[in-house]
């Protein structure tokens, strides 16, 4: 067993980190709450740099990398509240698997595709809808691609590009697409959790910085256990979230039978970890953390929204529980032979 990223992946993440700190940041998230626009760095730039086509095969103009690499980039994107979400990109790459032509359009930035959650005739709020030119949707068992009319809602986090979509034209790009749809959603959960990981990591970092320097009653506030221990708990959770995200991303390519469990575990754990970290940060900052000008609320807004996207904590907790039970039941009845599907 070797459960760590390698040197190349580390360098790759480092580059992504530099890129996103230059090209994105909470400032954009703040501005978008007052005026409409695309999140930074925006769909074209992500396509140009190959970030959104990381998991698209080379033959279709993509990078052909593993999902783990996408997760490493997503972590860095999350730190800077970048958008559109790489979760959407990863989801599209799975949904259009084998469709080289359309994937090439995506890789080369000619089309920007979002995925419609809910009915194609009138969707739930769907991620990155506001900046998309085309939409993928599931209609019964058929996967549709088409254009659509998008009505934005009043955003909590404006970088998620949430909109209600109504498809105005569509063609079936895949029949019997249910399994693929589910897998695409699991992959998207992993990448969304990776973005949450990066954001939560940054949030804990901000809290630690403040707790080291801000004094009250003659001592830095980080000396007080009430502050210190909350930050520690959040740091522990973020560190553990990283383990789940890496495992889930690895599973997508190397142990697909573990993906459903791992993706749900990562997504569920991310929901609470990220939200709690933001609440700690705002609390630890005191008055300044409640201001519009501080970045804290922008991360908090992202956390409040992300925890619900692609299934909330309850949905994923139930998935983990039921998959574990069903694997245990299969193991008892001998169905799986000597290899356990679920490492619980």
């Amino acid at each position: 067993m070797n459960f760590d990223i390698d040197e190349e992946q580390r360098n790759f993440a480092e580059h992504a980190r530099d890129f996103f700190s230059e090209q994105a940041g909470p400032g954009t998230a703040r501005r978008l709450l007052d005026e409409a626009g695309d999140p930074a760095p925006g769909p074209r730039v992500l396509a140009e740099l190959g970030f959104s086509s990381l998991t698209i095969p080379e033959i279709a103009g993509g990078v052909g990398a593993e999902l783990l690499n996408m997760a490493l980039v997503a972590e860095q994107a999350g730190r800077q509240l970048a958008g559109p979400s790489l979760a959407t990109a990863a989801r599209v790459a799975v949904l259009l698997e084998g469709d080289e032509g359309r994937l090439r359009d995506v890789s080369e930035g000619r089309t920007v595709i979002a995925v419609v959650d809910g009915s194609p005739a009138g969707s739930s709020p769907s991620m990155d809808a506001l900046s998309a030119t085309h939409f993928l949707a599931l209609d019964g068992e058929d996967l549709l691609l088409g254009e659509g009319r998008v009505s934005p809602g009043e955003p909590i986090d404006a970088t998620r590009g949430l909109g209600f979509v109504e498809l105005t034209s569509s063609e079936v790009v895949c029949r019997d697409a249910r399994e693929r749809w589910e897998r695409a959603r699991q992959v998207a959960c992993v990448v969304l959790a990776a973005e949450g990981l990066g954001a939560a990591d940054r949030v804990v970092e901000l809290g630690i910085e403040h707790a080291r320097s801000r004094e009250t009653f003659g001592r830095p506030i980080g000396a007080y256990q009430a502050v210190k221990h909350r930050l520690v708990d959040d740091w522990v959770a973020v560190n553990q979230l990283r383990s789940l995200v890496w495992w889930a991303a690895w599973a997508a390519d190397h142990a697909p039978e573990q993906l459903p469990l791992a993706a749900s575990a990562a997504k569920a754990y991310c929901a609470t970890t990220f939200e709690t970290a933001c609440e700690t940060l705002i609390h630890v900052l005191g008055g300044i953390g409640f201001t519009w000008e501080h970045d804290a609320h922008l991360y908090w807004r992202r956390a409040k929204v992300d925890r619900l996207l692609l299934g909330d904590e309850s949905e994923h907790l139930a998935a983990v529980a039921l998959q574990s039970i069903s694997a245990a039941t299969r193991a008892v009845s001998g169905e799986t032979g000597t290899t356990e599907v679920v490492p619980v």
Partner: protein
Amino acid sequence: MDFDDTPDQARLRDAVRQFLVDHDSELAHGDGAYLEEPGTDRVEGLRRTQAILFDAGLIGLTWPKDYGGGGGTNAQQAVVNEELHRARVAGPIGHVGLGMCGPTVLGHGSEDQKQRYIRRLLRADDLWCQLFSEPGSGSDLAALRTKAVRHDDGWHIQGQKVWTTLAQHSRYGILLARTNPEAQKHRGLTMFVVDMESPGVTVRPLRQMNGHQSFNEVFLDDVVIDDSERLGDVDDGWRVALTTLMSERMAVGGGGGELGVRSDALVAHAASRLPQLSDDRRRLTIEALGRVLVESLAARYTGYRLQTSVERGGRPGPEASAGKLTAVRVAHATADLGQRLLGDEAVLARSVEGDWRWATSQASTPGIALAGGADEILRNILGERVLGLPPDSARVAPRPTPPSESR
């Protein structure tokens, strides 16, 4: 033990209820404390509401008659408050004046000050603010650095305050300033009434994470205050401030009042949403709703016990801080559950039907949590003053332990 109205109270209740029915259209309404729709400004409407209620004798019922109050009992005020709550009348815009500044003026002001200020404060003719916190002193209030220096023409004030609720709408404020920089930090402070229209006062509203602008920065640049506007003795301001803080504690959650969206609004929301949920979601939601309601009831009935004790002449002691800890937690849980009940639309700040209450309350709770002391401060107060645990900072000198060697 008795929760029933006396005949007098029952008559009062009927009268109040009738009044509120008759004047319903003139009054502002709302689903919770400090809960305002983003992008709207109801200040004038809320002032009018407070004036109407005051004129009807429903505000300041227990305050001295000499200064415009009703001279009544806490029990009467409790009856009135219940009816205001039932009628969904919005909380008074002048809550800082009613909850903190007014009691401080009553407790420490001159007869002249009381005559000039109290009645107009009760009626929201003047709004008041509390100029305490500074950029460098929040929890550690007594570390404040705004200076007041005595000259022939009065006290000259120099400094900056922050997180001052309502300052931009306020005519007056109570101001805590350092008058003796040499004294031990709690001993060199003095309290004043400051006219917010004085030269040298600059108010800059701060935009908050909920989009509102209820907090302000206040810059005090050589503001002159006449010595007659002093509250209490020179260098005795900490004792005066304790009156304010004690009143604040009772006002913010201490008496069992709710912060954030009212629990009856949550129940109504749940009642309308539950039938649309899947069986699984319904069961999880019912548990979450039960948990919020039980904690809310626990805080409410504890507030009733405190009210009874105050009515009997007890003063709200440090244990009143407990109510706020719970009330903030309930407000948080209420907003969270209310938002989640919006289902798919819970990722938006306003549902398709236009429900903005839960998202706004979520984004407002961290601010409410700061008023009257952060959780840690309240827990320290309770731990040290009520439970008798040793103080937090090492006033007892610890045995030194080099960090590198500690376990």
